[in-house]
């Protein structure tokens, strides 16, 4: 048992191909976006760190620096004041600053403040006994004061450094994010280009080829090259185009065969009357347009009814077929001939006038008169034909044929087996 199942197509389905491309891109895009999100988080973390930890630390450092500076200034006051009470008051503040938690939390500051407190305490004590002690110890204090000043500067710088460090981290993350963003955009652009190329190569171009093939589809021309495509859907379209082309070719062959059958006489194989009239009309118009000679003729088998009655219709058919063969042999290839009806035949002789067509008609008449026709039962008969010719160079085909028919009638009237030209009184031919 045969089935019409077609073999499974080898290829990729378009939707699956697109889904695959989209999946790959989506994965890459999601990865890139995820990396961008991480960088963004790094920026947020750096900012959060800056706000939550660094800024308070910087403020705290600034306050510590302020206290160290205050301690230094109180020390200067101790050396500048002549009043023991004022010196005692400054020393009081120095002690409180040096013991404040903000100083004690910072080891270098605590060491320096402790050193200054001890030094200034000794100076205040010595100055209470001898004012000269202030002058004697001032150089030492200048060095200590300088170190305090440097410490203050260092702390101010450290505060800026702390902020700078966070900003560097944030900037680095932002810069990385910018490069990644550019990479994502390039990736996006590449994807669009790749998709466009794939769509063009595997969808648009094959479709254009199919459309072009469809628009120029002709039974007489070979099908343009299609495929092979990787996409099953395109393969199906191309296969359909091929099948359509094949179908059109078959239909054209059938149509031509049918046309041929429609234009031929079924018995004799000659052109039938309808087709003859169409082609003769065209030929006649052409001849008249270029003022070329053209002649039409009518022929009729003599005593055909009697032959039919005597030998039967099969014999009549055999005679008609034999006469058609003689026509083909006797006339030129360019001459048109048809079975006009029954035993009557019509002719059109291009490029010759009746005076020249007589020779052709005579050749046919003689050929017919000289030939034995073998009937289906084996017997042989001989038949003759009468022919009438008429000039068709200046009148419509119907009129010209009418003239030829009248000439044929005249040939019959004159005894048959002869050729008569319309309008010419002299007749040619002989009796059968």
């Amino acid at each position: 048992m045969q089935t019409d199942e077609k073999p499974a197509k080898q290829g990729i389905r378009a939707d699956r191909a697109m889904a695959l491309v989209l999946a790959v891109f989506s994965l890459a895009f999601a990865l890139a976006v995820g990396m961008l999100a991480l960088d963004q988080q790094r920026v947020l973390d750096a900012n959060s760190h800056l706000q939550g930890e660094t800024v308070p630390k910087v403020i705290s450092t600034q306050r510590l620096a302020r206290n160290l500076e205050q301690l230094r200034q109180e020390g200067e006051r101790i050396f500048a004041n002549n009043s023991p009470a004022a010196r005692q008051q400054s020393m009081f503040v120095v002690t409180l600053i040096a013991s404040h938690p903000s100083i004690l939390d910072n080891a270098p500051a605590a060491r320096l403040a402790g050193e200054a407190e001890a030094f200034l305490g000794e100076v205040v004590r010595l100055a209470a006994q001898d004012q000269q002690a202030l002058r004697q110890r001032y150089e030492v204090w200048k060095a200590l004061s300088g170190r305090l000043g440097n410490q203050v500067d260092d702390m101010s710088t450290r505060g800026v450094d702390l902020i700078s460090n966070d900003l560097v981290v944030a900037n680095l993350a932002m810069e990385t994010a910018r490069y990644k963003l550019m990479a994502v955009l390039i990736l996006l652009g590449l994807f669009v280009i790749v998709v466009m190329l794939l769509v063009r190569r595997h969808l648009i171009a094959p479709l254009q080829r199919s459309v072009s093939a469809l628009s120029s589809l002709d039974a007489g021309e070979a099908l343009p090259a299609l495929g092979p495509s990787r996409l099953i859907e395109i393969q199906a379209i191309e296969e359909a185009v091929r099948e359509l082309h094949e179908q059109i070719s078959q239909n054209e062959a059938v149509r031509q065969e049918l046309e041929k059958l429609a234009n031929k006489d079924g018995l004799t194989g000659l052109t039938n009357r309808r087709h003859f009239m169409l082609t003769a009309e065209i030929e006649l118009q052409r001849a008249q347009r270029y003022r070329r000679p053209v002649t039409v003729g009518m022929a009729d088998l003599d005593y055909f009814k009697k032959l039919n009655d005597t030998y039967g219709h099969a014999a009549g058919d055999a005679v008609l077929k034999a006469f058609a063969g003689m026509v083909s042999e006797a006339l030129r290839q360019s001459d048109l001939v048809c079975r006009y009806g029954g035993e009557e035949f019509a002719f059109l002789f291009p490029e010759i006038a009746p005076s020249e067509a007589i020779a052709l008609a005579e050749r046919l008449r003689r050929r017919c008169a000289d030939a034995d026709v073998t009937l289906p039962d084996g017997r042989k008969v001989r038949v003759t034909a009468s022919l009438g010719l008429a000039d068709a160079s200046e009148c419509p085909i119907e009129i010209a044929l009418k003239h030829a028919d009248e000439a044929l009638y005249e040939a019959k009237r004159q005894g048959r087996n002869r050729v008569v030209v319309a309008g010419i009184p002299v007749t040619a031919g002989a009796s059968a």
Partner: protein
Amino acid sequence: MTFLPRLASCFSLLVGLLLCPVPTGAAAGDPVLRVAVLDNSPPMAFIDAQGQRNGFSVSLMRALCEEMRVTCQFSSTTLERVVEVVAAGQVDVAAVNLLDTPERRARVLFSRPVFRSRSIWLAPVALGPESAGITVAVVQGSAQAAYAQTQSWRIVPVKANGELTKALLAGDAQAALAPMPTVLGMLQQPGFERLGLVPRVLPVAELGGNVGFAVSPERPAVKVQIDAALDRVKRDGRYDRINSEFLPFRID
């Protein structure tokens, strides 16, 4: 409701917001925050020569109220009663510098640290905390008073920080134990320098650490607001300006 009326409502709201004056501080009609402060605790809280409340804590509290868009309604209290008043919800906040101790935290909410402090032993050079039979002035209700109870000192209780110097000048006490800012205030008191007192930090854990404002346990939202406001005030420079106005060095 269709889309257009909604859009019109949103537009009207936006226009209204744009046309509204931007509040720049506490104003009449703002919510009222009941704040307890000390009267005689210079330089942190005191009544100045014009009869106005002044001091580091008072100014800081005003800044916080402005930041919170509320009106501060001050009332007086004492260090001895402040925790009780706040715990009872008679006030919302006490702008009193309280050492953050477990005992106090059990009764009231504490703001974020306003500053850090240590306790100063203020006495003549020859007298130390270990001196037997020494008379020590402390403020009633203070952490220093609680610590003094545990020592073999003769305690001279006073009601306010501002009275410590008087006790010393009057000879009622030989020494005083007070927070560092209070000692700075005492330094400005007339006659203080004649006492010849020397400051010495007491290295006792419960006498130092974070100092904060007490918030009523009934108003936890106020604590959150105060914490946020304090953070902003400490960052934008207002805190330091107030610090400079009342104290010779940074206490945070």
